[in-house]
């Protein structure tokens, strides 16, 4: 009974009790909140600071500096890491690097292959072909057109290997002194009396100037001169021009593949094409050139996989569409101070980049957009004055009474600002094309779509610099996914050690309306940003 009495008493007393409340103040606050809700814009202390400082302050805000610092540190760490890797590789015997006007053959198994070639040469000698290893190399290199083709064919396997290592094999031989007496390809018939047969096939010439400099792991054709032998001329021209992207020197299982073909900067790998045989192999040069380098004529889907971290500060431009008179009124009252926005995105992107220049990339990123809108909130307040009449005392002692105004109308103006904080996870997919400007620098362009999932949309609004109300979640915004059209245009620099630096313009157009349908405006953004990236070529 007591229980019922307690509950009943409290409930009956409080259920109808009305506390005193100043409804004018309450209504003003509600109006501000409603207008803010209709606009979908917000305010924060950080954004207020940005608003005061302008776009420059916004661009160099702490968050962006932190983001760029992280990307920079990752890049520096990557460079140091791969620098050390590169030094380790340099200490290995078969790392080959190109120099201007030279031709390099990089081979992970140069020593063994050279030995084999030497053995091969020995085998050829045993078959009666009295040649030096150099001769054997050159001859076998021209197996299709050389007069000794038939001889070589008797020992095709070994000669083919020699073909594949035509230059490498010379590495194992004592250096031939450049001599007018030497054969066109560095063979000095006089130094090898038993090479008469070779001499017939490779007539010696006084003008022959091809010399081989034998270095432990490097062979360099330093000069290619005239030759009387047509085949040798063809070979010399072929090597000198280095214009073929894929130079198959033999129709057999082994071939010499140029990885890049620009004159004076050729890098080519010695690759044994027969998968069944041992890997003679190519060690990709440490200096990664643009995958599209060479004009993309090598084409195909072969290419690189590139992992990249991107940091993109944006300048965002709101696109507002009024759907009703109310929305149009809001647009008219809106001040042009909402340009102070902080938009930032960090992406982790994987890119497959073909040698033809075409690439596709996909990635995931985390982004923010802090927006601020300033609105002039005008309202008319009508108050009832407690003055029924005005009494005027005339000189004659009589009084006139004039009805006093019962209502006093007063216009008031308030500046209210709303700040919103949007946080989102974004998934992006795009296709692009890269054009190499030289071996290290390329220009790229890409276009794609992104889908973002909003993780939070908080904010609050301020009326005349006084915090009125804050929102953990802004009900004015849609919480569904958003879609964007994305694009980019910029430059990539392929450093040594496979690190790729990129910088360029990034563009995003928000396709989805941010505001819920029941509100009188639509809000979308166009973002223009600076895409900075650090990547690694795998």
């Amino acid at each position, binding site marked *: 009974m007591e229980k019922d009495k307690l509950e009943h*008493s409290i409930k009956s*007393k409080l259920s109808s009790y009305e506390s005193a409340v100043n409804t004018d103040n309450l209504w003003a606050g509600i109006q501000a909140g409603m207008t803010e809700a209709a606009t979908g814009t917000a305010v924060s202390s950080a954004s207020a600071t940005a608003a005061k400082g302008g776009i420059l302050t916004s661009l160099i805000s702490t968050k962006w500096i932190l983001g760029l610092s992280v990307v920079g540190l990752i890049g520096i760490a990557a460079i140091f890491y791969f620098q050390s890797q590169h030094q380790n590789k340099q200490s290995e015997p078969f790392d080959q690097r190109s120099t201007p006007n030279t031709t390099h053959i990089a081979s992970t198994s140069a020593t063994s292959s050279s030995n084999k070639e030497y053995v091969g040469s020995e085998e050829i000698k045993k078959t009666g072909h009295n040649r030096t290893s150099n001769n054997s190399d050159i001859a076998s290199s021209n197996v299709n057109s050389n007069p000794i083709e038939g001889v070589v064919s008797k020992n095709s396997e070994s000669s083919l290997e020699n073909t594949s290592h035509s230059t490498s094999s010379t590495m194992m031989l004592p250096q031939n002194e450049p001599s007018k007496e030497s054969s066109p390809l560095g063979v000095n018939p006089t130094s090898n009396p038993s090479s008469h047969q070779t001499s017939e096939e490779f007539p010696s010439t006084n003008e022959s100037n091809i010399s081989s400099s034998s270095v432990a792991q490097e062979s360099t054709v330093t000069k290619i001169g005239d030759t009387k032998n047509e085949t040798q001329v063809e070979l010399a021209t072929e090597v000198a021009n280095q214009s073929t992207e894929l130079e198959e020197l033999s129709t057999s299982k082994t071939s010499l593949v140029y990885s890049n073909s620009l004159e004076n900067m050729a890098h080519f790998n010695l690759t044994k094409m027969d998968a069944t045989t041992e890997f003679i192999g190519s060690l990709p040069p440490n200096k990664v050139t643009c995958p599209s380098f060479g004009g993309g004529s090598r084409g195909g889907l072969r290419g690189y996989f590139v992992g990249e971290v991107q940091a993109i500060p944006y300048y965002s431009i709101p696109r507002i569409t009024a759907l009703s008179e109310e929305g149009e009124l809001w647009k008219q009252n809106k001040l042009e101070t909402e340009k102070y926005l902080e938009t930032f995105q960090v992406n982790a992107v994987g890119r497959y980049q073909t040698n033809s220049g075409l690439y596709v990339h996909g990635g995931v990123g985390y982004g923010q957009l802090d927006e601020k809108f300033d609105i002039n909130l005008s309202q008319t307040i009508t108050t009832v004055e407690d003055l029924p009449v005005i009494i005027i005392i005339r000189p004659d002692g009589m009084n006139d009474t004039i009805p006093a105004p019962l209502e006093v109308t007063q216009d008031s103006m308030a500046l209210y600002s709303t700040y919103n904080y949007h946080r989102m996870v974004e998934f992006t997919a795009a296709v692009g094309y890269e054009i190499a400007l030289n071996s290290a620098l390329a220009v790229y362009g890409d276009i794609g779509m992104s889908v973002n999932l909003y993780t939070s949309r908080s904010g609050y609004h301020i009326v005349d610099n006084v915090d009125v109300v804050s929102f953990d979640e802004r*009900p004015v915004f849609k919480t569904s996914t958003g879609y964007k059209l994305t694009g980019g245009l910029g430059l990539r620099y392929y450093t040594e050690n496979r690190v790729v630096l990129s910088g360029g313009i990034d563009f995003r157009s928000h396709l989805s309306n941010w505001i819920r349908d029941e509100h009188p405006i639509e809000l979308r953004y166009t973002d223009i940003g600076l895409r900075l990236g650090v990547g690694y070529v795998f």
Partner: protein
Amino acid sequence: MKETEIISGCLRSQASAQRALVDTYAGYLFTVARRYMPDEASAQDILQEAFIKVFSNFHQFSKEKGKLKNWMSRIVANEALRRRKKYMDYHQSEDPETLYIKADPKVWSDLHEEQILALVRELPDQYRMVFNLYIMEGYDHKEIGEKLNINASTSRSNLARAKAILRKRIIQTENDDSWKKINLNIV
């Protein structure tokens, strides 16, 4: 303005109807907010946010859901709960001896609404929430448990403790002049 006119006007987002709604129900809803919040400023914040939500979601109101007053009252209560989850410690405790205090039933009817309200607002947070939701809003203990993320048994226990505390304090203040010191001018 009649309630039906207010409703139809609010559905069309007419400012005059919205203002009328505020004028009509602000006092009652402020009482609801004050029951949940221990300080006036928080109660006013909640009231304002609740009205904004009412107007933003007015299309969701239907008479099938009950009276407009009760619908708005629940919005205020939910807003208070949302605020409580963020700002308040829900792990307070109260002396169990208060469970055994008895009070004279006659006392209840003699109390002014502001006095009762003050007593309710002095309750520890976890007891006040359960008391309001059960006694005033009419939720059962299962619903309260879901709202407050507690067990239904805990809700029952908290309600019993809340009542006990109220009885104790009423007895303590029966002959206490402190009642007279309660400021009834809230705003």
